[in-house]
């Protein structure tokens, strides 16, 4: 690292400690901070952008009321794209990694659980503080994800703050 930056090991190490001390003084946990940065890098890679939550819910309400079909299609397609990206990423368990990242990026979702194996998947999501259209659209996006990974949704339960999806692996599909 020091030779890449063209500085001495002494100055690099001292600089790192100075910044670590600054972070400590500001009450920032360095490990947590780096984890958050890594998440942002992943968000950028998978084409996610941050948006203000209040506007976001307002936009969803209006769009869902006025152009439901188009909006649903857009969410489903983004689930498909997301799944394709992870499927091609060379990860050992791309679906699990995708859901882990999605959970970390969904500050408004309080819990996202995935159980199952190669044959069947059970997904449950709790999001008590969001609007009903948002929960519906999130479930649509997840359907796009599961379909792309070769699963068929056999049971879907969507209420104001809860999503439950059960899916079976389609015969003949592979990762």
């Amino acid at each position: 690292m020091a030779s890449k930056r063209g500085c001495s090991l002494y100055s690099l190490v001292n600089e790192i400690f100075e910044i670590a001390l600054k972070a400590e003084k500001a009450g920032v946990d360095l490990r947590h901070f780096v984890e958050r940065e890594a998440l942002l890098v992943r968000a950028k890679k998978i084409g996610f952008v941050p948006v203000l939550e209040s506007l976001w819910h307002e936009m969803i309400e209006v769009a869902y009321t006025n152009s439901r079909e188009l909006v649903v299609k857009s969410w489903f397609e983004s689930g498909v794209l997301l799944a394709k990206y992870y499927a091609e990423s060379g990860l050992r368990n791309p679906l699990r990694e995708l859901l882990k990242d999605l959970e970390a990026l969904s500050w408004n979702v309080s819990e996202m659980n995935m159980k199952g194996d190669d044959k069947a998947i059970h997904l449950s999501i709790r999001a008590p503080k969001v609007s009903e259209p948002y929960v519906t659209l999130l479930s649509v996006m997840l359907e796009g994800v599961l379909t792309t990974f070769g699963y068929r949704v056999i049971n879907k339960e969507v209420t104001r703050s809860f999503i439950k999806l059960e899916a079976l692996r389609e015969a003949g599909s592979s990762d």
Partner: protein
Amino acid sequence: MTKEKKLVYVSKDIIDEITRITRRKGTFISKFVEESLNQAIKLEDMGYSIEEAAESFEVIRALRVLGGVFTPQEVLECLARETCRANESLLEKWYEAGILYGKYLKEKFHDPLLKLRKFLEIVRWDLNEVNVKHDKNLIKLVCVSVTHNHELTEALARFVEGVVTGLGYHVQKKEVMKSLILLEFNSMYT
């Protein structure tokens, strides 16, 4: 990773400070040292310098404090297209949200205009360029994104206009076209 040790000099002031912190936390100096270096290496591997990461940390913290969500860009564009067409008053909400951000930046930072640029660069990574130029009393802000549709550009322009207003500036000129936002503003008191 090998556990072989290497001796590197560290200035006494820094070691004193580390000692003070580790004592307070009831941990070892060696643990603090290893943890700091490990995290710095991780950041470097991600293509960040620690200084850049510190900037983005502040910005993301602001986003979290004021309420933010992550969404696929194509979904955001679809929503912007459908909602801006259907509901003009929603643009006003982008403006009002911008004012709130502007006030927050003004309250929190010494150079809020610089933070606004950083905010747009870091949070709106879908923007290809963000530029702030000072020309005597006038300040020019340019945002370029080749991927935004017209509706999203317009919504973002209203948001930025709101931020600038919240910072206490007066917008003199605004040009919005697909993928480009140009704002000229000056202090309300000049």
